[in-house]
């Protein structure tokens, strides 16, 4: 029933002064383009994994020609400014998501591993987490997970597999899905803390630290009376406590003074466009402030019921994705998909404008943009829409459309991506080789 959004400005007001603050208080989020990352000595890539659900209308996604200087397809047109750093990979498939598609597609995108049946999460670590383990340990957060909807619609869970693989694209270990934050306010506070001044932040940090100590002690005391199986869970818990401790120490030593922070966002914007851009803006800030190197982003939820009136699609996304080859519905889908690319391109533009070391954030990024479904009407997993963007610290060629034999495992591309990120990996999921041309 409440029709308001709450905005906590955390602005201290002089006691008794009664000074009126002019409304509206919110400024646009325009952080300064200062290069916090510039201090980093070695060039280390940033990794982005941006997932969109429900595949793509492939004839509007796949460029008409291969090789260098390929022509952009309609859905990819918004990426024209980044043509030099864009690689389209065609011919990939990911059969492990067969069956209850919507419940498996997100989490298997980066694992390429068929989960075990059952209500307990049981798959394999995802590509981003393999990277996080290797190159994500010197930032406060090994990785950051962002979503733009609280969850999927009906049909995103499955009787055999539960809901473990539909709400996230990231698994830290075989049994630990990483939840994705969809609330911009909470995301902001997680990134930049909850204090206004350095003194306040220090105090909150101290408090947080002592809570963690206590939590660890309490968990240990629980252990004494538990059975084997529960003790394994407590040790997971302790692992998590240590992870937070490490993060807290990193955050405490982080200097955010050069970063112009926007105000704390007001809950979830009702306007989808505003919402998506806000979340992407924060993803850019997190890289700029070196809070993380690895970012996972779900641009819409699996089985999303979202409507896209801004591009004249009043229908629910999932409903229209079952297009039944109706040209009108397919046209609508193309509009949604092109719009997603536009929002994505806006983010790239911001990354390109943010200095990082000798180049820009985009020059140092490796960003995978794609879906784990192909034709949303047929629910299949070949050919997958897959794009790679960024300079990868000079390790990505860009400006090419590569075509591989049909059903080449998506995992082969992920192995190649990890290699460029400086995380040599022999095998990932069902990979049977590596794509060397990127």
């Amino acid at each position, binding site marked *: 029933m*409440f029709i308001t959004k709450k905005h906590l*400005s955390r602005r201290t007001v002089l006691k008794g002064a009664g000074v009126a603050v002019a409304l509206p208080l919110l400024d646009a989020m325009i952080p300064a383009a200062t290069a916090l990352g510039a201090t980093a000595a070695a060039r280390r890539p940033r990794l982005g994994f941006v997932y969109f659900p429900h595949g793509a209308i492939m004839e509007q996604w796949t460029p008409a020609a291969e090789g260098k200087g390929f022509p952009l397809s309609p859905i990819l047109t918004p990426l024209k400014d980044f043509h030099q750093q864009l690689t389209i990979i065609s011919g990939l498939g990911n059969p492990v998501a067969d069956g209850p598609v919507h419940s498996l597609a997100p989490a298997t995108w980066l694992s390429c591993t068929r989960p075990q049946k059952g209500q307990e999460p049981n798959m394999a670590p995802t590509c981003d987490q393999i990277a996080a383990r290797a190159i994500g340990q010197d930032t406060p957060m090994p990785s950051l*997970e962002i979503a733009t909807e609280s969850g999927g619609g009906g049909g995103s869970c499955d009787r055999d597999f539960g809901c473990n693989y539909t709400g996230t694209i990231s698994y830290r270990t075989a049994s630990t*899905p990483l939840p994705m934050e969809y609330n911009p306010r909470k995301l902001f506070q997680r990134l930049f803390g*909850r204090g206004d001044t350095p003194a306040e932040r220090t105090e909150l940090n101290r408090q947080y630290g002592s809570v963690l100590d206590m939590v660890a002690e309490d968990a240990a005391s*629980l252990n004494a009376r538990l059975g084997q199986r529960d003790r394994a869970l407590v040790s997971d818990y302790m692992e998590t406590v240590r992870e937070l401790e490490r993060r807290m120490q990193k955050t405490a030593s982080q200097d955010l003074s050069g970063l112009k922070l926007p105000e704390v966002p007001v809950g979830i914007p*009702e306007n989808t466009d505003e919402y998506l851009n806000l979340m992407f803006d924060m993803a850019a800030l997190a890289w700029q402030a070196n809070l993380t190197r690895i970012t996972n982003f779900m641009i819409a939820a699996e089985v999303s019921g979202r409507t896209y009136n801004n591009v004249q699609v009043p229908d*629910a996304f999932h409903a229209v994705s079952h297009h039944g080859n*109706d040209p009108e519905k397919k046209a609508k889908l193309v509009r949604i998909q092109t719009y997603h690319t536009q929002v994505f391109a806006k983010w790239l533009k911001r990354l390109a404008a943010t200095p990082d070391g000798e180049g820009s954030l985009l020059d140092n990024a490796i960003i995978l943009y794609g879906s784990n479904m192909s034709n949303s009407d047929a629910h299949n997993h070949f050919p997958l829409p897959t794009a790679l963007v960024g300079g990868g610290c000079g390790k990505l060629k860009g400006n090419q459309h590569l075509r591989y034999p049909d059903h080449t495992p998506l995992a082969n591309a992920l192995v190649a991506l990890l290699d460029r990120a400086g995380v040599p990996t022999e095998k990932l999921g069902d990979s049977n080789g590596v794509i060397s041309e990127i």
Partner: protein
Amino acid sequence: MVLCSTARAAHDDVASGTDFLTKFCGDCHNSTDWAGGVAFDTMPQENIAGDAAVWEEAVKKLRGRLMPPPGETQPSQQAIDAQVSWLETRLDAASGSRHRPGNVVLHRLNRTEYQNEIRRLLDLDIDAAALLPKDTKADGFDNVALALRVSPAFLDAYIVAAQEVSAKALGGNATRATSTVYRASPSVARYQHLEGLPLGTRGGLLVDHLFPADGEYNFNIAQSGSRGGGYISGLDSRQRLVMTLDGRRVFEQRLGGEDDLKALDQRQASADKEVQDRFRNIHLTVPAGLHRIGIAFIARSHAEGNEILEPLDAPGTGSGMPNVTAVEVLGPTKVTGMGDTPSRRRVFICKPATTTDETPCARRIVGEFARRAFRRPVSEAELQAPMKFFESGRQQGGFDFGIQQAVMAILASPKFLYRAVGLPQDAAPGSVHRLDELELASRLSFFLWSEGPDEELLNAAAAGQLNQPGQIERQMKRMLADPRAQSLATNFAGQWLTVDEIDAIQPDPTLFPEFDGALRRAFHEEMNRFVGSVFGEDRSVLSLLTADWTFVNERLALHYGIPNVRGDRFRRVQLPDSRRYGILGKGAFLMGMSYANRTSPVRRGSWILEQIVGTPPHAPPPGVEALQENTEGNVPRTVRARLEAHRRAKSCNACHGVIDPLGFALENFDAIGAWRAKDRETATLIDAGDTVHGVKVSGPDELRALLLRRPDQFAQTLTTRLMTFALGRGLEAEDMPTVRAIVRAAAADDYRFSSIVRGIVNSDAFTSTMVPMPKPAATTAQANAAQAH
């Protein structure tokens, strides 16, 4: 799925038992074909316990008549019933008299439980959804222990929640003045009355704000009149703005009209400031606690309005009427006291008179709070950690702040956030242990109330009374009669009956212009109250399907065609027509299992199989074609005609031959659950007739009669779901004998709700735990299947 082409039409029945298996199942499920990885000829009856999982699945398939698939030789219903009893009797006998209780792992509070626990401990309503990440569902419920994992983001959110909740409840570090801005949603229609605001007002904003202390606060209201790049808008006529606090008018001011217009025209910026200043710096004295702020304009006759018609999608554009856009609450600017909020009353059970009293009083407060939060007595040693938080907080911000820090520490502790069942250190795998009384008390109250035990239950457990004969049952009865047991309707049944599905559907406004948010809310409310009436009045659970009453307000009555219901209040009514009896006639189900633009007999049929019959059909195989939507320029076809075309393929018919006819019976209910005689697109009469299980069914009444032919079936589904929720774990094949025993006992009591709850809380699965076995050896069936592949 393997399909065998040996269809025979004859209904020649045989004796139940192995003959039945050979005759009706053996053509496909044999050691040559291995359909579905099952071959009954390799599963000796002597090892029925070892193969229980497969046999239980077979029972389900037979009960739901999913097997033999349509098109294959069908046994008569009597033969099926006899075969089901034959199998169930043997399965029950094989499991022995004492059932294996299973094991529930360390159980984290989920979001709903957390919210309820905060209310129990602190008398404070919070919105847990805004504080904590969403929980993962498993086996249809969000309280399944195995799925409630912890990750850094989770733990972080729980610690931050502890900080925020304790500050909210107890007032934070004394009373630093803060600013909070609430913005009105732009989608509020400025011409319409907003529910909750005084009648006779239009537009506006309504928020609950927590005032941390007694004292003075400053309010600044922003409205859309007069501002905007020097242009004057919204001031053509005189308007009055009112502000209320808990419904009481505390401020009123004029805006617009001739003098304002003139001043703005002549002096512009300085006049604008004057106008705005009328709505700033509103000083009010407010007592601590949660208060509701309402701000709106007094409605005027539309005849004198000068608004132009606005497009639905873009409210606020090009209008002549101002609206409230935001309010800022600043303060407290002067503190007169810490206030007497319910939370503070709950926590501060003593007040130190002198500084030397502080530590002993804090020890009492912290000890009492920890006991309630940990849901058991606490030792002195356990209080050391929270007392340290008290000490450091006291040094920083005085006694009250010290207490708040201790409360924060307790709320962040895993002892509060987890429920654990202890085991002796030398417990052997497979050994069974009864829960101690405190563990049992928590299990009982989280089951019946979705929150921790109250004082009476906790005291009974701590005094060792709970394991005395009849005591659990006594507590259960008391707790079912308590209003908190309504959580069984809202939380348990809401999830079981998938009521939230209606929130995922946005009906196509061109097809269903009459649909609005009020109807959606009414569907929720009706289901909560209806299920609540069956559970709360301890009726037979069969009345969930057959009840001739429901709860409606005017909006819903209009939708259902029930006359003489006026106003927004929900009331119990007798249904004039049997078509809406029970849950199958409720909008929450009918709309939830539809799509935005059409009905879905497939979703409705599958739902009935899963939630009512208890035999969920398989998910469609990959690569199936979706239903063809009607397109412009082509002759439209009914949903039914399109589905029937799809069903012609034998591989589809194997499941859809069972699913679709159940859904067809409800085709007279459209995609938002309204009754219809004709299909909108084709203008033809709805055909709801089909053959289900060899019986002609042509509408909701006959469908209900069919589903109730075996009342134990529905009772068993409900028991299975309720027990999953009660235990917080998925049920295994070895739990099924327990379920059947509960259902049989409840049958003698006309399947009263409490008789099922009683069966659950008295079961070994509920009262005991088993040390998990190391991974079991493969069953005969699995071994055989593995060999065959």
